[in-house]
């Protein structure tokens, strides 16, 4: 099928199961006429006669004039709509089934199902938003957590664009100096010393790397990380999950081997979504069911980004503990020394000495002791020491991050050339590439910025 940008497109605007009402959104030349065909209301007023940004109540009917659902219609006329085209929104309250049916009717009457993000694409193509804003909207549609909603909202406001523009400006400032000393050598210009420029480039490169790191952390905040709670039987793994989840998620008994199949839960710790799994206690067992459970525990270990190893402070360290630690080589781990409300038979020091592991936290899952410390530890391990307030951070998307990585590489190359005292045109060549790369993020067009900069800054001319 030939997908043209002039088709009228339709899509369900709410995700399945997310809301009680379903929204069907239409955009394009035929969206008004098409809606008139399937919409009825008492006063028989035409949608085309409605004012823009007004609503009307009525119902949707099928070919046989049978009512499908009661709806509210909102009309946004071009060009002041999201896509700069005529947009109609049909709010039905029959849930997904009704929404599906209405969408089907729209298609039968000449609309085409929108591709993912196509409304935004049209908004972009029709010049309503720039590239970084368009990407932010797509992120917004796809974001799962509340935090990532905030990030996406920031990007719509154009924060990414502002930040990239600022970085470009800083690169431009260096370029202006470098180029002035090449093209205007005959003049008596007071150009900034090379060493100072080198420092500036190092600073710019750092700023770009910060953005890249923030993206990585932002990614964690948006999509969460996988965590496994592991340990030998009866150390209190299920109890720990329950206290972290603040609900009775997993069964807790005094019988070792209670948990047989892993229990998964999504929970937030300090704003970080954790996809956390309580696993079967690991020990040598002959029981087939338990064996399968243990095998699964190992699978969880290998696919998690963070492992919480639980040990029982009320018992001796044994072979089981040792084997598990062995298994965790190269993983990100936190050790919880549990049951500190009871008599301590194994101490923090001992574990530290025996396994050479540092991140050990004493807790009681039963009495809710040390859990706040554990939560803090998880946060610093995942996001780093310093405060990471995502709302104040600029989080770029994946495409933007890749461009930033390239730009950072160019700047490193420039710094190397400057360290070697190579002449100005060499770092300049790297900087220009970095400058243009950043322009790709914001969709800038080319102009004579460098020469304008030189003439603005220096007294040039003979």
């Amino acid at each position: 099928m030939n997908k043209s940008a002039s088709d009228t497109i339709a899509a369900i605007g709410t995700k399945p199961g997310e809301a009680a009402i379903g929204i069907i959104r239409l955009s394009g030349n035929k969206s008004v006429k098409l809606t008139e065909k399937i919409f009825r209301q008492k006063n028989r007023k035409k949608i085309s006669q409605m004012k823009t940004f007004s609503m009307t109540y009525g119902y949707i009917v099928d070919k046989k004039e049978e009512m499908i659902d009661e709806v509210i219609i909102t009309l946004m006329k071009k060009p002041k709509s999201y896509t700069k085209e005529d947009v109609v929104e049909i709010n039905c309250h029959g849930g997904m089934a009704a929404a599906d049916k209405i969408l089907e009717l729209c298609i039968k009457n000449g609309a085409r199902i929108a591709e993912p993000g196509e409304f935004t694409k049209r908004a972009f193509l029709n010049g309503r938003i720039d590239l970084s804003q368009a990407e932010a909207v797509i992120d917004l549609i796809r974001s799962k957590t509340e935090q990532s909603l905030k990030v996406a909202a920031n990007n719509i406001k154009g924060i990414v664009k502002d930040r990239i523009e600022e970085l470009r400006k800083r690169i431009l400032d260096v370029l202006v100096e470098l180029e002035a000393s090449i093209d205007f050598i005959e003049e008596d210009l007071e150009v900034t010393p090379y060493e100072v420029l080198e420092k500036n480039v190092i600073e710019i490169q750092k700023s770009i790397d910060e953005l890249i790191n923030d993206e990585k952390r932002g990614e964690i905040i948006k999509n969460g990380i996988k965590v496994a709670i592991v340990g030998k039987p009866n150390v209190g793994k299920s109890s720990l999950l329950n206290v972290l989840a603040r609900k009775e998620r997993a069964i807790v008994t005094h019988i070792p081997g209670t948990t047989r199949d892993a229990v998964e839960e999504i929970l937030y710790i300090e704003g970080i979504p954790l996809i956390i799994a309580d696993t079967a206690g690991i020990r040598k067992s002959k029981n087939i069911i338990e064996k399968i459970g243990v095998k699964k525990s190992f699978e969880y270990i290998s696919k998690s980004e963070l492992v919480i190893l639980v040990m029982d402070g009320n018992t001796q360290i044994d072979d089981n503990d040792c084997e598990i630690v062995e298994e965790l080589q190269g993983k990100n781990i936190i050790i919880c020394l549990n049951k500190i409300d009871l008599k301590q038979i194994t101490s923090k020091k001992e574990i530290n000495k025996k396994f050479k592991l540092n991140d050990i936290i004493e807790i009681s899952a039963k009495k809710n002791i040390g859990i706040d410390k554990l939560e803090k530890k998880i946060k610093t391990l995942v996001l780093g020491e310093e405060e990471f307030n995502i709302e104040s951070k600029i989080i770029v998307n994946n495409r933007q991050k890749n461009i930033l990585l390239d730009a950072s590489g160019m700047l490193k190359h420039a710094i190397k050339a400057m360290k070697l005292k190579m002449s100005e045109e060499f770092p300049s060549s790297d900087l220009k590439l970095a400058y243009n790369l950043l322009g790709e993020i914001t969709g800038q067009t080319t102009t004579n910025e460098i020469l304008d900069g030189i003439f603005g800054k220096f007294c040039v001319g003979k």
Partner: protein
Amino acid sequence: MNFEDVTKIKYDVIVVGAGHAGCEAALACARLGFKTLILTINLDKVALMPCNPAIGGVGKTNLVLELDAMGGQMAKTADKTLIQLRVLNRSKGPAVQALRAQIDKKEYEIEMKKVMENTSNLTLRQGIVNKIIFEKGIIAGVSLESGIIFNGKAVIITTGTFLRGRIIIGNKDYEAGRMGEYPAMNLTYNLKELGFIMDRFQTATPPRVDKKTIDFLKMFIQPGENIPMSFSFWNSKKVYDNIPSYLTYTNEKTHNIIRENIDKSPIRSGMVKTHGPRHCPSIDRKVINFEHKKRHPVFVEPEGKYTNEMYLQGLTTSMPTDIQQLLVNSVAGLEDAKIIRPGYAVEYDFLLPNQLNHTLESKLLENLYFAGQINGTSGYEEAAAQGFVAGVNAALKLAGQHPLILKRSNSYIGVLIDDLITKELYEPYRMYTSRSEYRLLLRPDNADNRLTKIGFDIGLIKNSDYEKVIKKQQKIESLIEMLGEYTINPDEHNNEFLKAIGTSTIDTSTSIYKLLKRPEVKIDNIFKYFFENKGADNIKTYNDNYDKDILEQTEINIKYKGYIEREMLGIKRMGKIEGHKIRKNIDYFKIKGLTFEAQEKLSKYLPETLGQASRIAGVSPADISILMIFLK
């Protein structure tokens, strides 16, 4: 021959104007065997340098050498008439180094005129053109103010600042092409009638003073180089007379004179309203715009061997003459200097160059070309380069051959023309190296390697010259190969040498190629040590086998390989959209998705390729994607 007969001659090409553009255009056409007429208002002012008596400079050198590589005249005439030659940016890399030659102005004019007079197929003639003549809608020639008509199949307009020229000094102004010369009034009206859009620019020149009245002891001497050099690839190198220039500075007193009299400056009084070149501002403007600057440099340059006139580069002004005298006398060494000619500003009509194709033929009328300052450029070099391209293309078209379209990726001349026809022009256009995105490739030293083949294919480069270039290239390539294979041992001797030239020692046997990659290692040192002393069989006396140019380029190719390859990759990437032709007669306002700004700009510039479109200010990468989809 009487007038009657003259009008019966059918020329192939008529060039209007004998400045730097006109001369190159006429010479190219005539040399390619086309019957060419060049008309000028004043035959005593052929190839005049009305501003500074110099050729070259950073960026401009590339233009001159590229022109030379393709068979242009400028570099050759410069070599013959220069009185001082200097290397600029010597401490920088080869891509941005440049030559600057002080020229004996009068000799240059005489020499260029002589060359033209002795070129077969070329006729020089004095006269003021007032109209372009058509026959059945096709260009048929030009008519003069005197009523005479000349027949020609193609016309190249290279009238510089003459169209509706107006000279301003202080509060006086009068119509003139240059100081003391007639303007061309009617031709500009004729062009407008034909549908061309003209705009107005302004430029200015400093006063000239009498050498006998200057105290050079108070100035800094600026000598030329004492090593054999030449501008042209085809001339042998030699050491020139080297008449020095001098450097002095303005001071607070100078600036105060300007401030006190600023209301008399034409830029303030409103006598001059149009844009002038930012790279060449008047001293008035410099003092106003850069208030904190305590001094501005003034270069005192000789205008020639046989004249006492000295050019005061840096003191451009069109203040009233008495103020100019005060200004000049406030500068160290110029206290008693007598002005011989005052500085002045000139305002003139130029053609908005977006009305031209890459061949410099107008989009509006076939076989009508424009080149030089009339296209809104400044500088003799920029003019000459365009003149050559227009001339060659006029000839190629008459011969029914493929046009000469230089690319951004092979020459600064390509950059110049592409910029002119796709970018907004706010001021007279001057070349800079920063205008090229392939600066490390488009070097002055390899202009012959880049372009001589083109000149040879057109027919403006002799076979023997072309072969020289090929041989040189082969030598460079084999030398690079040899240096990759020639390894040196990490013995005490060699390491001692490496230490001495300030680079780290080696502990395994290493190729010379590898050593040359180090920025601090110079090919000259290496060759002296390894090949001269030790007498390796094949290059015992390397000086005999490899002249300076070859060693230099070998070193560049090795040392900057990474950078050069990256630019080549850039060219390859751009190649796709560069070669993507845009069909004519597109209504950009009907393309959905383009921003309004892009629609407007594309309609204005009517780019020939997607590459060109991508360089138009206001057309974003997103617009280009949409255009690409539309063109599919």
